């Protein structure tokens, strides 16, 4: 690796670069291998060189086989994931940003209680509430509706906490006070002064909540009974069940391992794309949060 070599020359001690490089292999190799696996036939996967590229032909074959599984199920699942994640993300932002702003910048009765409640809920292992959540959602007859997962996804106390920290540390109070003295209404100050300054935290909260929603497995696994409604994570479980090597009772609708690799690749691509585009803002948001000491 040329990058490593250059780094090593600049450092008095090559050990740090070596260790970082080794971990780089650990973090990146599985994804790279996934890409290669998706381009092979199952036979090539087992007998060929693991680190070689298969063929475009095999990739096309895997694509056809994957998309014909349960009549395009993979696209339905990806579409469901996108729908659930983005609707929840939109609600999260509309709810969490004003809430964090108010907790940091305004005084109201119950503010302190709300702050403590947010911290407590943020530290609660949420998956343990999945079974009670099922009972609740069942009681209001929402089981099987997309809202049964979208609404719980929208509740994102960590986002409120991040916003609270951000407004408490990164936005000068004087600026808000000045706008207020100029006669701006409380909503006006939020809309015209605070919100334009909030881009980094909006990006950060949006990204974290998107990833959390997109990768959630337990909640939709329990709350969405129909295969048609699965997000892609739960769909991957269905595909896994249809791989004969992993499940000897898979039956006729068999899925081969390269097709599973291709499906996994499709499932992770949206998050990588979102990450790539928002990376610049994310660093700004994280650093703003990190200055709180």
């Amino acid at each position, binding site marked *: 690796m040329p990058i490593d070599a250059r780094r090593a020359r600049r450092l008095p001690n090559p050990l740090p670069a070596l260790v970082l490089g080794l971990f780089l292999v650990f973090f990146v190799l599985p994804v790279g291998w996934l890409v290669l696996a998706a381009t092979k036939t199952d036979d090539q996967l087992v007998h060929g060189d693991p680190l070689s590229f298969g063929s475009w032909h095999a990739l096309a074959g895997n694509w056809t086989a994957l998309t014909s599984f349960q009549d395009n199920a993979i696209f339905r699942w990806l579409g469901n994931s996108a729908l659930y994640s983005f609707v929840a993300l939109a609600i999260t932002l509309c709810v969490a940003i004003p809430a964090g702003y*108010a907790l940091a910048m305004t005084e109201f009765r119950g503010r302190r209680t709300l702050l403590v409640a947010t911290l407590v809920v943020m530290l609660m292992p949420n998956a343990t509430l999945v079974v009670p959540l099922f009972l609740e959602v069942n009681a209001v007859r929402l089981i099987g509706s997309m809202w049964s997962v979208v609404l719980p996804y929208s509740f994102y106390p960590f986002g409120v906490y991040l916003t609270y920290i951000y407004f408490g540390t990164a936005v000068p109070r004087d600026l808000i006070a000045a706008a*207020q003295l100029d006669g701006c209404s409380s909503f006006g100050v939020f809309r015209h002064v605070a919100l334009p300054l909030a881009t980094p935290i909006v990006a950060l909260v949006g990204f974290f909540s998107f990833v959390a929603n997109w990768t959630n497995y337990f909640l939709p696994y329990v709350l969405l009974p129909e295969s048609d409604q699965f997000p892609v994570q739960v769909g991957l479980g269905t595909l896994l069940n249809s791989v004969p090597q992993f499940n000897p009772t898979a039956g006729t609708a068999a899925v081969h391992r390269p097709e599973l690799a291709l499906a996994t690749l499709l499932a992770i691509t949206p998050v990588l794309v979102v990450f790539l585009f928002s990376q610049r803002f994310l660093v700004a948001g994280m650093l703003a949060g990190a200055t709180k000491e």
Partner: protein
Amino acid sequence: MTTAPRPAGTPSRRRGFWPGRAGHLFVAAYVVLLIAFGVIPTGYAVYFAFTDAGDTFAGFSNFAEAATDFRYYGAVGHVALYLVCWLVSLVVFVVGLALLLHRLTWSGAGKAVRFLYYIPGALAGAASVLVWLFMLDPSVSPVSALLRVAGFGTFGQVVAPGHLPVLFTIIAFWTGAGGWIVVVYGALNNISPELLEAARIDGAGAWQTAWRIQIPLLRKWIVYMVILAFAGGTQLFVEPQLLSQASVGVAGRDYSLNQLSYDFAFQNDNVNTAAAISVELLVVGLVVAGVFVARSGFFDAD
């Protein structure tokens, strides 16, 4: 909502600019969600945990039923062992790697490495488990030679029950560590360079600087990471669930407490015992978080 502008010159309060309704309006939607998806499910869990199928008060009998289930102590032990492996590796490697990254003098490389380390973070959930199923299956793994050297010739040997805490740790570390490295690296950047320079002039080497200055200043972030990783670790579900599918039962459908709770609720139709397990996990999570928060003063900001 508009409030009358305060006459110029009125001293603003220490904190608030708009006493009264504006703050309530801003938090109203959040409070509704907090009640619906924080308070009510917790209340439901507690209610079901202490009642029986006929809605009458049952004391601790649901907890007793869970505890006497033949799978219970196995599941507790599995989760505990996994948590030890997971937390130790997270703290040691995340802090170590962040410190190493911080020493890289060429910032372009540091940026690239942080980005690449983060990539698996996008693969949480089922996707990460599938990736590692492939990595751990000697018949298709790119590191099958390593697996064979270690004495594993078949997938069944790799996923033997005794190996699971380590395997789940690898999966969780692979998906979770990158994000934490970015956070800890950010915190390291906030340590004033003069402080590090002073230490260097006083003759501190890299180890001493890390051990005596940087790590103590990272304490809050490490505590925060441990709390969230602990909470996340107790939720173990998707990894054993998918692995049990793929290994045709080697991992078992009752490996973790969450799987056990799920089984009670949806296989045995016994939501009360399922709720008792949920309540136990919540109490343990909150107690541990509380101890850490109290001892580190992480949330003293307010």
